């Protein structure tokens, strides 16, 4: 319990620092993404202990579907806009997904270290 609360506090502090930096750079990159990069860097440089944020990080990321449910429910308010643009939305989503798959796979396959 102690460990969990401490870990949560550490994460919230990184989130807050990320939000401040985001505000300073005119919201160019979202604060939580900056917080993520900062926590990653702090873990890599052993500024914070891996163990201190382990349990809370696993709890949050294993249940992230729950955290974005409220946004998904917004479908009930946005469905008209989606339906009136359904062709473009569908094609853009499907085609772009394939493009990303092939581009990333091909480049890594060509330039990556041979296995």
């Amino acid at each position, binding site marked *: 319990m102690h460990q969990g609360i401490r870990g949560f506090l550490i*994460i*919230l502090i990184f989130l807050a620092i*990320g939000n401040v930096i985001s505000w300073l750079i005119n*919201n*160019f*990159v*979202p604060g*939580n*993404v900056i*917080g*993520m990069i900062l*926590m*990653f860097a702090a*873990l*890599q440089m052993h500024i914070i202990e*891996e163990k201190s*944020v382990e349990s*809370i*990080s696993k709890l*949050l*990321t294993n249940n*992230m*579907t*729950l*955290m*974005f*449910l*409220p*946004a*998904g*429910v*917004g*479908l*009930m*308010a*946005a469905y008209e806009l989606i339906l009136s*643009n359904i*062709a*473009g*939305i569908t*094609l*853009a*989503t*499907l*085609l*772009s*997904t*394939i*493009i*990303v*798959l*092939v*581009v*990333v*796979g091909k*480049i*890594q*396959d060509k330039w*990556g270290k041979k*296995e």
Partner: protein
Amino acid sequence: MKEILHSDTFIVILTIGSYYIGTLINSRVNKPFTNPLLIALILIIPTLLLLDIDYPTYEKGSHIISFMLGPTVVALGYILHKQIAYLHGNIRSILISVSIGSIVGVVSVLLICWLFDCPREVMISMEPKSVTMPIALAISERSNGILAMTAITVFVCGIFGSVVGPWVLKVTGIKSKVAKGLALGAAAHGVGTSRAIQMGQVEGAFAGMAIALMGILTAIVIPIIESIWKM
């Protein structure tokens, strides 16, 4: 009665309860259509309509849950820290391939939407579609997109990418395990990663790494492209 049903407590119970039922069903029958998000939405939206709870009321009541998105994104930093050990000298090719993948992903969405005359808010909401949901929502919110539309396209992208992904990789002759994992994680985030884990440990590890990298890189790529595109 209306006060009770419109209360934050009821809305939070409805949301967590529906998610819990979703995970229970998913752990018994693991198929794309038994995705916990889909099941939870099928339970929540009709309940709200039935009880005459509009979306702004729901959004306000569930704020304590959506607030947790911020800490969840930060927690992804821990996941990336754990996975980075797998890099094995591939760092340069991985950064290049995921960066180009991120740019191509955003530009292709914009071009197709533009061809179909989609309004600006639709384009902006769809840009981060290959990014893991919590980061995609943060990016969309920053660009004033419609979060629900971002959520649905990220969701569809994940399912579609993980279903056709292995076949596309085979047809296009992508052979290395690292490339397969990276491509699945970059194109189809968490859902693609669970598919990559089924293919093997190496594929799974690189897919997981691609999720975080794709998120970070797309968060940087989108504001740059938006300032060039002048939307």
